[in-house]
C-alpha cells in the first residue's frame, strides 16, 4: 500500500495556487484508487490559509515548514524544507505541482531521500494496485506511461492536467517540522521579480486564444517593402481586443534578439515550440508562421487550431491545423480588428 503526500509551497499570502489544487485533486483520486493514506505538507512564510482551505481533502496529517527563510523561492531552503517534510511523512508517493519553484528542487529532494522523480506528469492512475504515470517525451512528440518500483516516488503534475480540487474550508493545525537554516543555505538571496509593464504583458496563460506571430510579419510584402510598424499596430490591436496570449515562432524571436527591425514586444519568453513553451489554450491562431514541426510541437495542448498563410503548402496545410486560410495576414487581421472593435 502506498502512502501519498501532497507537497506544496504556499504563495506570499499563505494560500495555494490553482496548479497546486490541481495536483491535490490528483493526490486525492490516487489515494482513493490505491486505498492508501494521504498527508498534506506545506512550506512557505505562512501556511494557515492554505491548510484551512484544503482542510476537507481527506488528509490524515497536515505537516508544515514555516518561516521567513522559506518565503522566497530559493533552491537551498526549498530543498531542505521539502526533504524534511518528505522524511517526516514517510510517504512512498509524493505529488506536487509543476511550478517553477517546485521544479527547481524536486529532483534534488528525490536524490536526498534515495527516491526517484518524474516531472511534467499529465496523469496518474492506479494499475493493478500500483501507481502509473503518463508523461510526454521528446517535447510532446511521444507519450509514454510508466511505473517505478523505487520509493519514494516524487511526481510533479503539469498545470491544466486536472480540475482543481474544490472543497469546503475548515480549520486544521498542522504539525510544524523544524528545519535549521544555517549560513550555507543562505548563500543566495532573492532580490525580487522583474515584471513587464502592464501594457507590455502579452503572455496570458488563462486566455482562451493563443495568437502566434511568425517571421512573415517582418518580411517584404507585396509592394517589396517591410511593414514592421504596421504589423506591430495590427498585432497589438488584436491582442487588446481579443485578450489573446501572444506567442512567437523561433525565427521571429531570434530576429528580435539580433536587433533587426522586428516586433519590439516579442521576446524569447513568447517563443512557442521546441525551445519555447507548450502553452494550454482552447484555441490557437497562427499568422505568417509556416507551421513547421519544431514550432508545432509547442501546439500539443492547443485545442482548435487555425492559421493564416500565403503558402497553401505550408506545415499547417499538412494536418497541423483545422483550418488554413491562404491569404494575406496583414489584410485579414486588419479586418478582424475592425470587426472586433465594432462588437
Amino acid at each position, binding site marked *: 500500500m502506498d502512502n501519498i503526500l501532497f507537497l506544496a509551497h504556499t504563495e506570499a499570502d499563505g494560500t495555494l495556487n490553482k496548479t497546486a489544487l490541481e495536483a491535490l485533486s490528483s493526490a486525492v483520486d490516487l489515494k482513493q484508487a490505491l486505498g492508501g493514506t494521504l498527508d498534506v505538507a506545506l512550506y512557505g512564510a505562512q501556511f494557515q490559509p492554505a491548510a484551512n482551505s484544503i482542510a476537507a481533502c481527506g488528509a490524515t496529517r497536515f505537516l508544515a515548514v514555516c518561516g521567513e527563510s522559506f518565503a522566497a523561492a530559493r533552491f537551498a531552503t526549498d530543498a531542505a524544507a521539502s526533504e524534511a517534510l518528505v522524511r517526516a511523512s514517510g510517504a512512498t508517493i509524493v505529488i506536487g505541482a509543476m511550478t517553477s519553484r517546485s521544479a527547481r528542487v524536486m529532483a534534488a529532494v528525490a536524490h536526498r531521500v534515495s527516491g526517484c522523480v518524474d*516531472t511534467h506528469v499529465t496523469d496518474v492512475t492506479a494499475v493493478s494496485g500500483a501507481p502509473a504515470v503518463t508523461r510526454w517525451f521528446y517535447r510532446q512528440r511521444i*507519450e509514454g506511461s510508466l511505473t517505478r518500483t523505487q520509493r519514494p516516488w516524487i511526481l510533479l503534475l503539469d498545470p491544466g492536467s486536472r480540475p482543481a480540487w474544490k472543497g469546503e474550508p475548515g480549520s486544521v493545525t498542522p504539525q510544524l517540522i523544524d528545519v535549521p537554516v544555517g549560513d550555507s543555505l543562505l548563500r543566495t538571496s532573492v532580490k525580487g521579480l522583474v515584471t513587464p509593464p502592464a501594457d507590455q504583458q502579452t503572455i496570458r496563460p488563462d486566455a482562451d486564444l493563443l495568437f502566434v506571430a511568425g517571421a512573415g510579419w517582418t518580411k517584404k510584402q507585396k509592394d517589396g517593402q517591410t511593414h514592421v510598424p504596421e504589423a506591430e499596430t495590427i498585432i497589438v490591436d488584436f491582442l487588446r481586443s481579443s485578450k489573446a496570449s501572444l506567442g512567437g515562432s523561433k525565427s521571429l524571436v531570434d530576429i528580435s534578439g539580433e536587433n533587426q527591425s522586428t516586433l519590439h514586444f516579442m521576446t524569447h519568453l513568447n517563443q512557442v515550440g521546441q525551445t519555447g513553451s507548450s502553452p494550454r489554450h482552447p484555441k490557437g491562431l497562427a499568422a505568417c508562421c509556416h507551421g513547421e514541426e519544431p514550432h508545432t510541437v509547442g501546439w500539443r495542448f492547443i485545442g482548435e487550431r487555425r492559421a493564416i498563410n500565403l503558402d497553401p503548402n505550408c506545415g499547417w496545410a499538412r494536418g497541423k*491545423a483545422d*483550418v488554413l*486560410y491562404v491569404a494575406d495576414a496583414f489584410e485579414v487581421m486588419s479586418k478582424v480588428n475592425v470587426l472586433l472593435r465594432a462588437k
Partner: protein
Amino acid sequence: MPGTALTRNFREGHKLKMSTPFQVVVCASVVPDPLQTLEPVTGPTGPALKNEMMLPAILDPWAAHALYEGANLVKKVAGSALWLVSMAPKAKLQQVMMTVAQKVPLQLVAVDGPSSGFADAQQTATALATAIRNIPGIDLSKLLLFGGWESASRSAGVTLQLVGEELGIVDQFQGVDAITPNDDGSFEVLERVEGARHQVSRCAGAPAVLGWATGSLGEPRNDPQVGMSNMRAIMPALQRAVAAKITADGLQYANVATPKQQRETRIVKDTPADQIASEIVQWIKQE
C-alpha cells in the same frame, strides 16, 4: 532582457577583472534533429526510437544556449575555463561535434552512453558527475555547472539538478536567462518564473548550477579556425570516452506511442479577406 548597468557592460564585452575565475562545465547531450519524424519502437532494453542511430542529431538546443553563454562568460572573466561534458553514443557525438566544435573554444569530456529520452536520469546524472570529478585540474569550489533547464529528449529538467546534488552543490537556478558576475566573485541570476516574469537572485559565488533557458545570445557563426583547434583535442577525447552502463533499475514502460496528431485541414483559398475575417471573428467568439 532586463538588466543593470553591470549586465550591459558584461554583454557589451568589457573584460572583468575578478579575483575568482570560474570553471564552467556545460552538460549537453545530443538529440534527434527536430525536423525528423520520431517513431517509438521496443528494443531489448525498453523503448527506443526507430533507426535511432541513423537519425541526424544536433546538440540539445537549450544546452546549446548554455554552451554559448558559458563561452561568453569564460571569454569575459579572465582566467576562466570551459568544458563540455556530453554523454551519447560515441559515433553520434563525433558527428555532432563536427558542427559544435566550430562554434566556441571548448574542451570535450565524452561519456559513451545512451542519449535516449527513455534512459534513466539518475544513472545518467551519476555518470556525468563522475566524469566531471575526473576532469584533470577541476576545482569544484570554482565550478559553475551549466546545462539546459530541460532537454529535448527526456524533457524533464531533472538531470542537471541531480548532477548538482551528486557534486554537493546547494545553489541551483533553473530557466536562467542571464548571469552577471560581480567583482567579488558573486553573481546575479535571472530565472524564468510563471507569468512571463524573471526572478532576480544574487548568489555569493561558485559553486552553483545554472539550467539555462534561451539566454540572450544568438548562435555563434561557424569559425573554421576554432573548429580546427577544437578538433585536435576532441578526437582524442572521443577515443578516451568512458562507457557508461545505464539500466532500467525499477523503471518500466507500460506503453510508449506517438498519438495521432494529423488533423483534417480545411484549406480556404480564393476567398475575400472580409469573409475570412468574419469567419475568424465568429470562431473566436464561439464558446
